[in-house]
């Protein structure tokens, strides 16, 4: 026996082989042409569980996760209530497949329906897909939706949408003859609406969709309502790229008439995990339902009249429509959607508001502490819980602070290498878990390293 999860004993194998009329295991692989038949794998020897646990602990210990961190940039540290993992570690949820047999999958189906409902409440929209890979993929899918819906091929995206979301969308666009154009920003840190208006005005190159972040990649609040109006006036769809926790206190995409809202669901109860698995949020106006990629769960009844839930409108999906499907997505992020469902249910409206507003309060404290040390904000627009500051020689300072156990946010030059104005910018954030101690430590270390 070389692995511990299989039940077969030598006797079982013999009995089964005998039943199928073979003399050896090799007979099962006689269909593989000899010229391409492999004879094993050059991999390390298998480990017992104790040895495996040791190796994994060693690796985990090589990551440093105890830093005083001000890094956000699309992935945020939050307190995840213990209820979330208690539910996520139930085998009935995490070892089930896609609920193809609704009679014995009502647990998954109802939680997806609840997820859809909760995200509807947050976004003010009416249709929510049962999840996408992450914020980047959701943004790309939304951009493709605007193209399918309008039958136009040009999409405008603010340069202050999360860099990775823009990059991912660009990659997804490689397949078509599609255009993705970036809109500039102003000194306020918001998308240049004049430039938007101009880009929308070109009659030869009609725009399918306009994508703007709220808060945007600089942490700044955008004039979403005006941007949406401009987009709509030009016959384009308006896509809000939102951070979901902020929706507890900010105007909902439905309020400013966004057609689609997308975003990264990680802040809703999902661990940072070096980038995934995360949760791509995608919500839309109800009349876009047939353009929505991915799974949808609907309410219905069974033959006895009991309320029940089922995957529905499946004719959008790849297994039914193949090359005509709205997307190729199959496996999605169902368990992450469950995490966010339990998270929202646990926090409730008041708790979620405390998370968002508490982060805003901490961020103001951070702004104050940094300003007191002569480190000013770069943009003049309003922010929620993340903002860019200017320090002399950002990369050096960032590295020096790291040595002192402080993760001083993101050097924005990583994302905007060609932007002189952001050369010495650090994007810093605070959430409800940021402590005043850490803020004080940050500020005083800044003084040291800047000296």
């Amino acid at each position, binding site marked *: 026996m070389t692995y511990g999860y299989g039940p*077969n004993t030598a006797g079982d*194998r013999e009995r*089964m082989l005998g*039943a199928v009329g073979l003399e050896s295991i090799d007979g*099962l*692989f006689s*269909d*593989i042409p000899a010229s*391409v*038949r*492999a004879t*094993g794998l050059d*991999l390390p020897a298998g480990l017992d569980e104790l040895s*495996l646990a040791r190796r994994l602990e060693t690796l*985990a210990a*090589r*990551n440093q996760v105890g830093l005083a961190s001000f890094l956000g940039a699309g*992935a945020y540290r939050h307190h995840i*209530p213990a209820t979330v993992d208690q539910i996520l570690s139930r085998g009935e*949820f995490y070892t089930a497949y*896609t609920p193809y*047999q609704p009679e014995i999958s009502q647990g998954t189906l109802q*939680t997806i329906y609840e997820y859809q409902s*909760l995200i509807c*409440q947050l976004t003010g929209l009416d249709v929510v897909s049962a999840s996408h*890979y*992450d*914020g*980047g993929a959701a943004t790309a899918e939304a951009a493709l939706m605007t193209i399918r819906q309008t039958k136009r091929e040009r999409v405008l995206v603010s340069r202050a949408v999360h860099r*990775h979301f823009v990059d991912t969308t660009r*990659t997804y666009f*490689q397949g078509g003859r599609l255009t993705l154009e970036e809109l500039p920003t102003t000194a306020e840190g918001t998308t240049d609406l004049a430039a938007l208006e101009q880009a929308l005005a070109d009659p030869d190159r009609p725009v399918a969709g306009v994508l703007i972040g709220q808060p945007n990649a600089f942490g700044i*609040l955008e004039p979403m309502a005006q941007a949406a109006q401009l987009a709509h006036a030009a016959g384009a769809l308006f896509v809000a790229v939102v951070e979901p926790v902020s929706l507890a206190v900010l105007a*909902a995409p439905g309020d400013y008439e966004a057609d689609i809202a997308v975003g990264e669901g990680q802040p809703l109860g999902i661990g*940072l*995990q*070096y*980038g*995934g*698995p995360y949760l791509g949020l995608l919500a839309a106006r*109800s009349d876009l339902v047939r353009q929505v990629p991915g799974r949808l769960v609907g*309410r219905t*009844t069974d*033959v006895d009249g*009991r*309320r029940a839930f089922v995957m529905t*409108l499946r004719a959008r999906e790849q297994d039914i*429509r193949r090359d*005509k499907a709205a997307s*190729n997505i199959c496996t999605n*992020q169902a368990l*992450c959607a469950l995490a966010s469902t339990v998270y*929202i249910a*646990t926090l*409730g*409206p008041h708790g979620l508001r405390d998370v968002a507003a508490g982060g*805003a309060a901490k961020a*103001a404290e951070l702004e104050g502490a940094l300003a007191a040390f002569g480190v000013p904000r770069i943009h003049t627009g309003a922010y*929620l819980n993340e903002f860019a500051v200017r320090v002399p020689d950002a990369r050096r300072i960032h590295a020096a602070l790291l040595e002192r156990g402080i993760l001083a946010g993101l050097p924005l030059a990583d994302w905007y*290498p060609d932007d002189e104005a952001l050369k010495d910018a650090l994007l810093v954030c605070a959430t409800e878990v940021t402590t005043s101690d850490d803020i004080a430590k940050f500020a005083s270390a800044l003084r040291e390293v800047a000296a």
Partner: protein
Amino acid sequence: MTATIERPEQETAQVPGPRQVVGPGLQPTLDELSRPGRATTKVPHAPADALERIPPDHRRAAPLGLPELNEPEVIRHFVNLSQLNYSVDTGFYPLGSCTMKYNPKINEWAARLPGFAALHPLAPDAVAQGTLELMWELEQWLAEISGMKAVTLQPAAGAHGELTGILMIRAYHMARGDHERTEVIVPDSSHGTNPATASMAGFRTVTVKSTSEGQVDLAALSAALGPHTAAVMLTNPSTLGLFERQIVELLDAVHAAGALAYMDGANMNAILGKFRPGAAGFDVMHFNTHKTFSTPHGGGGPGAGPVAVNEKLVPFLPWPRVFRDGDAYRLEKPGERPSSIGRVRSYQGSTGVLVRAYAYLLAHGGEGLVEVSEDAVLAANYLRHRLSDTFEMPFAQVSKHEFVASAARLKDETGVRMLDIAKRLIDKGFHPPTIYFPLTVEECMLVEPTETESVETLDAFADALIEVAREAHDDPELVKSAPHDSPVRRLDEATAARQPDLRWRAMSGRETPCPG
């Protein structure tokens, strides 16, 4: 193409009250449980003036309208819901093409280690050495298993891996100035994600028929191939559970036409250490860690779809790659490889899933993985043998990790369809196999037992299916009206689609000010 969603009047549906007995009772929804003023205390109360500096027009006007519950209700709700699910942890789940194997519990523990779970995705390399090392090592192992040159771990699922692979193939042809390749060829038995991927990547899909033996038709493929062919996507073993015996000839034909060969690796569980696609001539393939390497399916995800490529495609791998420099590990720097297709997602990958895959591979080692495939294939052939008197086996060839059986004869004789058989299996305590896929076999089921099920379980399942077949003769109505013993019975899917109800009604207006 648009549809307005009208809220159907479903008030006549029986809405569950409190749980009935131990066991699966239907549950109210969160909004039905909500009571204004209920709350938990999970985070500190925010200062009252926290939002004063936010301009009023940016602030949310309407109340949030989220359910208000306390913690005990939340737990009870989801625990009770969970018991309505069938799962690998509670029973046999022979869903073909899905590899519903056991999910080792140590892997769950590992992924939750704070060192892995709390690492920020933009953490500088210096503080992420553990995860980077894990990723690098995992890439080496997947390269060995695939017989390929290099691996990207970024794709979030198999279909995402397909898109990544096909975009790389596009980039490859483009880089060679070969702009005429606008088609992707797939066999008729292919999974829906293959043609859907081709479309997403801007290609036209060309479908070739399989032979009556369930093999890709070499002649038909050769005929379809040409200067417009960018790629051929083959699933090997195929979705019929069969190895492509002519794989060498097939690959030769693809390459002779100047096209590249993509392997859908969803079925790798059959051939670990038996067939290394890269070594055999495939140019690119994806893995589904949530199938072959036991990362949990999670009720539909998340998974991971690492993509392995041969030499030709290395320049086009998504950005950023993971490198080892001496003893240190690092992410590829911006601009380091301009030929890359770019990002296919945010950040570097679903590392929480990859930790589990890594743990799985290391628990097995090379020999263990070979045994996995041997046992998986043995289980499938054993079960196929047990069922061969009862159902038609359309293909004579030894099967790999799964097999197709057909109930066409039974349907002719009894009127009982495969759907009915599947539903009746639920009453017998089993999750049904995949049914009506692949599309090429009538009244079919695709049965994949996996290597983690005991022969007693296989026997019990075979006995159950044989009994259902008998029932189909003796009491067809019993089978046609199944399931009888499940939490709910057959659903009205037509109404669900005609009058979509995709959310509970808004709760606004019901909310109270934040208590205390």
